[in-house]
């Protein structure tokens, strides 16, 4: 296994033009600041999880990495280079979407869904080659007997089976990086584990760089090597998954962890404070975007945005509490 950085985002920012909303004066409408200045690295054979609430920008990051949206600012580097050719890029970076009911064309059989990327990316030319590779793909995602699944339509499959087809379709391009945007949140609890295990196996055995996007921090802890936490469009903490979940630094990560339902720890201290909701991304709070909800906010938090501080070589957080400058002053 190499420690090669396959896919990197460098200070990417995404602003969406708001089609409605208040206009300040007669100027342009303010944009929705969906993602602000996010940098990340995906390494071959490693699973990186990105967690955060809905609306925090994690799907937008995924879509920028998959080249569905162009970033407003910043660069996306594939093996250290910016790639302009979309097809060459997509051959290397593939995406699995959240909803397997919407991501497969209901009119086409499984064989068609898998044969198309094979042909488009030039991995198979003759019919025999296509058939052989389609069968191999189904085998890899454990949809066996292969002959039976090949000729099924999406509606004949369960949610978990469809998601496996979607994964096989992504693999057909023979990518080096796979972006899975909430791949199991639409699936039943009893089959989630199987799909996650499959993704894990693919990342390890085929040396794929996997970005696993989820709102379920417990599964991120279990499957990922590293965790990135996003809040209101910004990355606020990153580190090895065990460290981030056992010893979180940022107050938001702590809030997220304490809010996750945990049957083994029925909340004894009845903390009845209302924790509020994520802010508007059209006019985000000044300074640290988390400060209005933060239980330990300092005066400086509402004026100055915190910078990333290293807590350890591989554990970083953007919070004034850990900033030596703030603590000293």
């Amino acid at each position, binding site marked *: 296994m190499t420690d090669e950085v396959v896919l990197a985002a460098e200070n990417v920012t995404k602003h969406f033009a708001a089609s409605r909303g208040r206009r300040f004066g007669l100027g342009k409408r303010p944009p929705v600041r969906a993602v602000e200045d996010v940098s990340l690295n995906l390494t071959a054979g490693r699973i990186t999880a990105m967690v955060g*609430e*809905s609306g925090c920008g994690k799907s937008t990051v995924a879509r920028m990495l998959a080249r569905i949206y162009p970033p407003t600012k910043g660069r996306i580097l594939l093996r250290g280079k910016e790639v302009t050719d979309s097809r060459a890029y997509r051959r290397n970076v593939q995406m699995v979407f959240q909803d397997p009911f919407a991501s497969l064309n209901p009119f086409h059989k499984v064989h068609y869904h898998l044969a198309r990327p094979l042909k488009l990316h030039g991995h198979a030319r003759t019919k025999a080659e296509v058939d052989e590779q389609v069968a191999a793909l189904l085998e890899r995602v454990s949809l066996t007997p292969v002959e039976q699944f090949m000729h099924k339509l999406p509606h004949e499959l*369960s949610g*978990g*089976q469809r998601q496996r087809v979607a994964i096989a379709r992504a693999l057909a391009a023979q990518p080096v990086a796979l972006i899975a945007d909430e791949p199991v949140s639409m699936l*039943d*609890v*009893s*089959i*989630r*584990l*199987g799909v996650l*295990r499959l993704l894990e196996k693919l990342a390890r055995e085929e040396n794929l760089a996997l970005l696993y996007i989820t*709102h379920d*921090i*417990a*599964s991120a*802890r*279990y*499957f990922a090597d590293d965790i990135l936490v996003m809040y209101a469009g910004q990355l606020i903490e990153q580190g090895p998954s065990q460290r981030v*979940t*056992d010893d979180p630094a940022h107050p938001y990560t702590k*809030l*997220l*962890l304490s*809010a*996750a*339902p*945990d*049957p*083994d*720890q*029925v*909340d004894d201290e*009845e903390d*009845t404070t*209302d*924790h509020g*909701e*994520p802010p508007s991304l059209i006019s985000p709070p000044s300074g640290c975007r988390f400060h209005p909800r933060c239980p330990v906010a300092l005066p400086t938090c509402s004026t100055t945005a915190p910078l990333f501080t290293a807590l350890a070589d591989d554990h970083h957080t953007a919070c004034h509490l850990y900033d030596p400058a703030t603590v000293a002053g």
Partner: protein
Amino acid sequence: MDYLTGSGAVHAVDGVSLTLRRGEILGLAGESGSGKSTLANAVARLLRPPAVVTAGSVTYHRADGSATDLLRMGKQELRRFRWKELAVVFQSAMNSLNPVTTVGSQVDDVLRAHDRSMSTVERRDRAVELLRRVGISADRAKSYPHELSGGMRQRAAIAIALALNPEIIIMDEPTTALDVVVQRDILREIKALREEYGFAVVFITHDLSLLLSMADRIAVMYAGQLVEHGAARDVHDHPRHPYTLGLLRSFPKLRGPREELLGIPGTPPDLRDLPPGCPFHPRCRFAVDACSAEQPELTEVHSGQWAACLAHGPSYGPVPVELSAGGSR
């Protein structure tokens, strides 16, 4: 209670008997298609053709001691019963609230329709009071649903359910669409309101981990049948049915060491074509030959804890250690 739906007579719920005690939170867990929502809708008399209740009864015991079979209620009677004694909170508040009127007027609407004796001013005051109780400030009463966040909308839906002080509130996945932090705040709110008003809750969810900290008792459904029910603690600490055990070991834990996740192999069965005997046996790792022949009955395994599994019967031999009191997680 047993009932069929139209196309090909699907037994969506088959022979389920449950009691809901006054003021308790009963958690109903199961995967999609396990019949939990259908069961709740049948109780609330919300089923529409092609769904029909073919057998069974739903007895409602009033506080004054009188009892009625809800399934035999006439239109007039039902109109008086609904919302005054039994209210429903649906999964997506986005769809259950009217988008073209304000939330205040929707609370008002319920009051006007069910309680003719209140004056306009009284109703307005009550509406504001109800919204305040669920954590929506008075000035938000004039907001339209689209102006509120998902959490706020769900709170508004809960306020509407509370409007007439019902005895029972059925909550069908009330927090599934929400973020964990907001979800926890709302669950706390529900618990606090229950303390205050003393209503009973049927809480339907696919998220067993959430129920364990929320419910007093838990009932687990699989393929339209009740497979286990008992006190929440007992079900969590000592699951007696292999399906419950599998579910509990399917989601990763947030704290403590990374333990081996079992998961459940296979996929949920097709209700049109259920396996013979116990519907869970093809996915069960404790299954013996008898499981495919004999349908297990619910038996009391432990005081107050019932499970439908042959492993607890006389013919099975020793009960697997995982399913006995010794097999705690």
